[in-house]
């Protein structure tokens, strides 16, 4: 609630009377409402705001220790006790570290990207650099982070996505040569940690720190995400463009119309991750293997994911990732990106009888979008308006056994071009010096 008012320009200390969740359960005892009625009356008559902070540059904070290690420990404790940490070690955002990170972008540090909802913290280039510094990032990561933040701030309903109990997290898909240049993973283990391709962890962690520290998405206070999966680093990864079969479009081209080769981000808000064992186990022909796998993927998608209603018309029900070896084999068998999306859309439709059994129509009936409400007449009910809503990616390790489904709560899919400074090549050379000369040298 505090986040809701500060995000629209009011002081964050609104007159509030808050009650614990049990009071809101069916059949609950409402006695405490009567006992606390005076608080409502006072809120309307006597309450005064005591908030006095105004906008300006970020404050500098300080700790002292007997040694550098002691000071570093104290800085980490300070950040945690002020609710600015995530439980993992942080680099304090010293002036030197933030200035170093800021070399990664041509925009001035004071450039305002917007207010980060729901709390409404003013988000500048410097704010992003501070988060990236804390998350262990490097200058060449900053253009990707800034574009991802810009896309998030523009996303429809981002204030609600930040706070909702379903706990959606940004999945940032990167297209273009920048992915390899900054060591962003598109292959084996792309959603997890990788010392050879560390960019996604730092960028995603920085984005999460911004969501929490600037946007106010503090668990149980500013975000009611009941489970909060994938919230250490979100999901920041690249599409495997080299793995695209001939004639297939990069995601950014299909979804956003960006020319192939453009550096870009595309942000989907995902609410879950599911592995799909796609490959057959006996003596299937190539055609049977492909078709069985497609059915299995559709079976996973055929669920009444009611959070996805928010994106039924314009957003997406989720991201389906095919490993490059699978995409190539399916293309050889005549499958196209369109025919895959159409198959998955057609065969993930849910019979209305099953929808009724699960109480799903009630959620469709109260949806704010008229197109979504009208979908209740469709039987079987499609999980999104059109096949093109489904985000289909070629990504993951070169292994055919699994595909991966990230179901979504994504009213829109926002794309942004990534702008790099003229000195970017120099930054990449410095990264080579610090981390080795690129992933191919270090491939295990």
């Amino acid at each position, binding site marked *: 609630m505090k986040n809701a008012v500060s995000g629209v320009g009011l002081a964050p200390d609104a007159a509030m009377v808050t009650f614990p969740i049990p009071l809101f359960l069916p059949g609950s005892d409402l006695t405490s409402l009567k006992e606390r009625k005076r608080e409502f009356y006072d809120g309307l008559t006597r309450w005064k705001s005591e*908030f006095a902070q105004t906008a300006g540059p*970020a404050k500098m904070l300080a700790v*002292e220790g007997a040694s*550098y290690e002691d000071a570093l420990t104290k800085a980490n404790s300070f950040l945690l006790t002020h609710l600015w940490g995530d439980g993992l070690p942080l680099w304090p955002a010293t*002036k030197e570290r933030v200035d170093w990170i800021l070399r990664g972008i041509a925009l001035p540090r004071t450039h305002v990207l917007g207010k980060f909802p729901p709390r409404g*913290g003013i988000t500048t280039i410097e704010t992003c650099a501070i988060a990236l*510094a804390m998350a262990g990032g490097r200058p060449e990561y900053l253009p990707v982070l800034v574009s991802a933040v810009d896309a998030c701030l523009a996303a429809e309903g981002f204030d609600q996505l930040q706070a909702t109990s379903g706990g959606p997290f940004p999945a940032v898909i990167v297209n273009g040569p920048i992915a390899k240049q900054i060591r962003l993973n598109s292959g084996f283990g792309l959603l997890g940690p990788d010392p050879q391709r560390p960019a996604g962890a730092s960028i995603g962690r920085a984005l999460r720190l911004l969501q929490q520290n600037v946007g106010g998405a503090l668990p149980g206070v500013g975000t009611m995400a009941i489970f909060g999966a994938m919230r250490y680093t979100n999901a920041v990864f690249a599409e495997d463009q080299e793995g695209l079969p001939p004639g297939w479009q990069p995601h950014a081209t299909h979804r956003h119309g960006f020319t192939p080769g453009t550096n870009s981000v595309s942000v989907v808000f995902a609410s879950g991750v599911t592995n799909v064992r796609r490959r057959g186990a006996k003596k299937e022909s190539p055609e049977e293997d492909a078709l069985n796998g497609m059915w299995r993927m559709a079976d996973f998608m055929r669920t009444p994911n009611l959070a996805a209603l928010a994106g039924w018309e314009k957003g997406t029900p989720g991201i389906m990732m095919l490993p490059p070896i699978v995409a190539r084999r399916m293309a050889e068998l005549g499958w196209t990106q369109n025919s895959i999306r159409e198959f998955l859309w057609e065969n993930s439709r849910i019979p209305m009888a099953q929808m009724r059994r699960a109480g799903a129509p009630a959620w469709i009936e109260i949806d704010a979008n008229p197109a979504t409400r009208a979908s209740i007449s469709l039987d079987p009910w499609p999980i999104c308006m059109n096949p093109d809503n489904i985000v289909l990616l070629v990504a993951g390790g070169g292994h055919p056994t699994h595909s991966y489904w990230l179901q979504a709560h994504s009213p829109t899919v926002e794309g942004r071009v990534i702008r790099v400074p003229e000195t970017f090549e120099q930054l990449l050379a410095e990264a080579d010096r610090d981390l080795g000369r690129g992933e191919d040298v270090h491939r295990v």
Partner: protein
Amino acid sequence: MVKLEFHDPSGTLEVTQPHAPRLASLEGKRIGFVSNEQWQAYRMLPMLKEMLEQDFPGVTVLPIDTYPQGNALIGTEETAAQVKKSGVDAVIVGNAA
């Protein structure tokens, strides 16, 4: 001693509009509800309405459904304009998450 200085990571807040002035008293005033209609609002808000009517002579508490309800509608400019146009002295926002 080693001093370690670092940036505050929380971003600054900008207060661009004051909260509404408080009322001197609730007696004789018109009060409305803006509700997201979640989690027992249908039980709790009528109870609050009844308590206000009992405790303050001459108070007028508008029906719970006077304004648009639900998460998608209560934060819109249209709802705010409707509240303003209705001439209430105060509103209580019921926002269960």
